[in-house]
């Protein structure tokens, strides 16, 4: 999967435009990035890529790029 596809996925989950998602920004800067958005991201990751995020993963995320890196490394490990 590409970074652009992941950004699209996040945008879909947050219900905002993909252009509004900047990888260098902190997740905390997005008011839409709440627990429901996370649940949506997890449902989409599971459904589309068979990828799961753990509690330890969540604790490690600060920026959007952190999430992208985590997911892409899981995808290439699979």
């Amino acid at each position, binding site marked *: 999967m590409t970074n652009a596809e992941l950004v699209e996925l996040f945008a*879909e*989950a947050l*219900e905002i435009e993909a252009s509004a998602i900047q990888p260098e920004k902190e997740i905390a800067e997005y008011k839409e990035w709440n*627990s*429901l958005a*996370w*649940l*949506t991201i*997890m*449902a*989409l990751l599971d*459904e589309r890529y068979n990828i*799961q*995020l*753990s*509690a330890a993963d*969540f604790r490690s995320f600060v920026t959007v790029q952190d999430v992208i890196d985590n997911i892409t490394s899981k995808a290439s490990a699979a």
Partner: protein
Amino acid sequence: MYNPLDLSGKLVLVTGASSGIGRATAVVLSRLGARLVLAGRRADALQETLAATENPANHLCSTFDLANLDDIPKWIAEVVNLAGAPLDGTVHCAGVTSFLPLRVVSSGNIDSIMVPNLHAALMLLRGVSARNAVPAAGASVVFISSAAALMASPGLSTYSASKAALGAVARCAAKELAAKRVRVNCIAPGYVKTPMLDQAANAFVDFDRIEKAQFLGFIDPDEIGTMAAYLLSSAARSITGSQFVMDGGFTL
């Protein structure tokens, strides 16, 4: 010694016996003297459950995927044939949980929850209430529902619906199957210490909030098994179409 939960001589089918509530229920029922048919998708996991039961030589394992809905009645007939006796009880513990926010529901992922949780329950009722499957003295069916059926949890509308529906099924089936003396009841647990809870731990669930709300603490799965035993026993012969909430206080 007087034991109102004595299940000696009763043949009971437990679905979802591979793990969690199903496994714990099977162990409890075996300790109370029931003869079991342990059902699940994974033969190796069923063997582990069997090894944990009392009198393992007394029980049978049957590998079956409840997603094969239309095959369920035939499978039940085969189970009765294999066991050489009709089923005195059934505990349907098989089920899945999944957060499915409304913004991503699809027919596929709705079915992935509804099929094992609700559709299979209906097909099981058809199978276990068939003429040759029910003893003359009647039978008891127990569905494992969920306290989610009574709550308002964002992201859990499909799962909660599947479990709430079991309450409606139990009420209707209790009347429909009364002539055959088949009782149908639900247990609605809160958060139970099982692999399914570990799965939820990965799904951004706020455990501090849960521990505060479920003020009697996380539930041991054998507590659910003991309630199932009660509902299967003759001590519960006047109970049908009911729902028993075991939620550690969560829904209060």
